[in-house]
């Protein structure tokens, strides 16, 4: 086993606390090897200076995986990694994600994607993924809202396959109206609930006296007016 000698690259022997147990357990040599290979893979994409995979690295990864940058699967991968900031992957996040997928090579990673998709689509996970998508897209430190443009893109990626008609209609509305320039996390989550509970496109069971966010009240009114 040869260890790549790059400046700044962590010595795999400087093991973090949570790997201590594994290190001590002889039967986990395979696991150790897995981790090492994951790290190697990390280094092929990471920026030497910052020890982070940045935009260019991500782009490269995407093309290697034969997946579009806007593909929902990249977002799912970020979710699996519990990545904090869009456009950056830390080593911890990388390790977390690939270890969970048991992928220590590009091929294995590629093959793991369909299973990952299924996992995310499970109802118990999907809500969490949906919430993650919003937070992940926030770029600034104290930012709490996303501009309408980003919202529309994100909705298409995240919900486009499941709730096509609702997403199309809502994005159309958002782009047409002038009152809201951004959406909050509360409104984002509200839309998901809307898709799940409200029959579409008839909207028969929508009651604006309930606790739906105002933006959805306006959306429903807009649809109803259009239909008249």
């Amino acid at each position, binding site marked *: 086993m040869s260890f790549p000698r790059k400046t700044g690259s962590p010595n795999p022997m400087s093991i973090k606390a949570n790997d201590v147990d594994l290190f001590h357990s002889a039967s986990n040599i395979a696991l150790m090897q897995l981790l090492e290979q994951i790290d190697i893979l990390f280094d092929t994409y990471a920026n030497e200076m910052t020890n982070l995979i940045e935009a260019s690295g991500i782009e490269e990864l995407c093309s290697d995986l034969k997946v579009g940058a806007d593909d929902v699967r990249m977002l799912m991968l970020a979710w699996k990694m519990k990545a904090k900031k869009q456009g950056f992957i830390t080593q911890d996040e990388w390790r977390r994600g690939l270890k969970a997928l048991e992928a220590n090579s590009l091929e294995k990673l590629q093959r793991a994607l369909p299973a990952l998709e299924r996992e995310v689509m499970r109802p118990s996970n999907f809500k969490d993924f949906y919430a993650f998508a919003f937070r992940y897209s926030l770029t600034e430190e104290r930012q*709490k809202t996303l501009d309408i443009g980003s919202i529309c893109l994100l909705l298409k990626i995240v919900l486009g396959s499941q709730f096509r008609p609702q997403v199309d209609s809502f994005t159309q509305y958002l782009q047409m109206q002038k009152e809201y320039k951004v959406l*909050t996390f*509360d*409104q984002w*989550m*509200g839309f998901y*609930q809307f898709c799940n509970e409200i029959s579409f496109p008839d909207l028969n069971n929508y009651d604006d*006296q*309930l*606790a739906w*966010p*105002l933006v959805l*009240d306006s959306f429903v009114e807009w649809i109803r007016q259009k239909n008249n």
Partner: protein
Amino acid sequence: MGSQKKRNFQIEAFKHRVVVDPKYADKTWKILEHAIHEIYNHNASGLSFEELYRNAYNMVLHKFGEKLYSGLVSTMTSHLKDISKFIEAAQGGLFLEELNRKWADHNKALQMIRDILMYMDRTFIPSTHKTPVHELGLNLWRDNIIHSSKIQTRLLNTLLELVLRERNGEVINRGLMRNIIKMLMDLGSSVYQEDFEKPFLEVSADFYRVESQKFIECCDCADYLKKAERRLNEEMERVSQYLDAKSEVKITNVVEKEMIANHMLRLVHMENSGLVNMLLDDKYDDLGRMYNLFRRVPNGLSTIREVMTSHIRDTGKHLVTDPERLRDPVEFVQRLLDEKDKYDRIIGSSFNNDKTFQNALTSSFEYFINLNPRSPEFISLFVDDKLRKGLKGVSEEDVEIILDKVMMLFRYLQEKDVFEKYYKQHLAKRLLSGKTVSDDAERSLIVKLKTECGYQFTCKLEGMFTDMKTSQDTMQGFNSAHGADLGDGPTLAVTVLTTGSWPTQPSITCNLPTEMLALCEKFRSYYLGTHTGRRLTWQTNMGTADIKATFAKGQKHELHVSTYQMCVLMLFNNADRLSYKEIEQATEIPASDLKRCMQSMACVKGKNVLRKEPMSKDIGEDDVFFVNDKFTNKLYKVKIGTVVAQKETEPEKQETRQRVEEDRKPQIEAAIVRIMKSRRVLDHNNLIAEVTKQLQSRFLANPVEIKKRIESLIERDFLERDNVDRKLYRYLA
């Protein structure tokens, strides 16, 4: 005489048998039977009560009670059968009389017979559970007379016919009726009910059905009600005169149903004479009658109430949306008060002060007053008018009455905060121009508002009064400190207003004339000398000035003008002719205010101290002004320009409304936070309901607006939505 042999004294039983002669019973019975005959034949006087009693007693004693009883039954029965034939034979009117007479006879006879047979009544009858004599006598009478086929129907028909005749106005023999009816009652309540009461009620129902139909076709509502009332009273009198008291409620029910309940709606809605007409014409008696009659039937009062309510709502709605009426706010409010007075009187005198009617009146007023969004403004204008001049010369009690009436209208308002805003504006103008008719009246109204709405509502208003008082003191201090310096110069009267208490005004530019500047500065330094850390800004748009003017022909006048007007006029001390632009430049008064100011001095007849070229009504940028040498006015003191509160112009209205809306936002948020802080977790609908309730005394909160505030509070991390149930909100400490 020799001595007698002493015998033992013994009491021996009868040695001989007491033989009861078998014929004894027959013989005894015959005697009694004969007696009964005699009694029925009115020959009782020849009988010996003691002997008959003894005979009856003996029969029972010797165990012949059965024979006695059955004999009694058959004898009485045969007599009654004869009596029956006799009665049947009676013609016409005599039928009842005979029946009555025979009944009286029978009762007398029965009493005597009962007395004779008293021993049997007390011993034999109870032990054999037979019917006692008196009751037996009644039953036999019932079965043989009243229920005899030839009498039963005839009796009923006769009675009913008499009732009909009496209803049709004839006089009948009430005493006879009473006796007959009493007879039926005595025979048992089922006899009275089956043989008289039930058919009586049916026939009465038919009678009144027909009569009511006839009346309703030809009478107007008031007349019909009078007739119905008359009939009702008649029936009640009839019962008291000759029927069983228990029949009263039954027969009145019949009349109520046929005459009132069945025609209720038609009466109420009758054209030209129905309820609405009565209300319009203040027909207190007719309305009272309707109330008293309708309260007897189910839904009667609620029918009246509903029609009254919708009528009031309609008239109210027209009143508040009629542009003619809305021209004069004072007139408008007076009309409202008059309407309220009218209905208070009606409810008081005709509707028995019925609480449900009062409530209906209140809710109707609440409904239509709030249809017009300008109602709060108009009510404030009404108060303004009263406090400026309307209450002049009015006694203290009457002042209270009027103010209480105003408070009542105020209570109906949903948007009380809008009223507060306008009231503040109008009060400010009144105080500053010194134009209030009575300080006591002003204070009294403030107290009433405080009682109604709480301290918060009025603390600022009270602040305004305080400022006025304090300013007086300040002026006294200023004049005693600097009075000597002023000499012949202009005098200054300053009112210092605390910014928070008075309606906010944007500060406007205005250059004061030099004559005033020095004086104003003196005051400013005096004031700030005693009140460090404060800032004073002259509110030139709120002041007034009194100027002495001498015109070309020597006319002297004292002019009462606004501060703006003063600035303009003072310019003419140094120039004979000034263009609009020059005036604008010199005074720096904003265009719209300046134009109005110039207009009031150059274009109003009797107040035209200035002359304008050209002589048009409007102020143009190129106009030129001169002092009007030809100015005349009968009075020495001339008031120029109006400072009286007017109805707001459209843009002003929008501005006020916007400010009100803005003020509501923090109030809604404060309510939400208060409620969530105490409840910790609450669902959406309940939160909306509680917020609305909390704010009710100020304004009607819009659920959409409340939702907006909730979302804003979520964004600012005061609240969060529950993760699982998104209807629930949680307070974040």
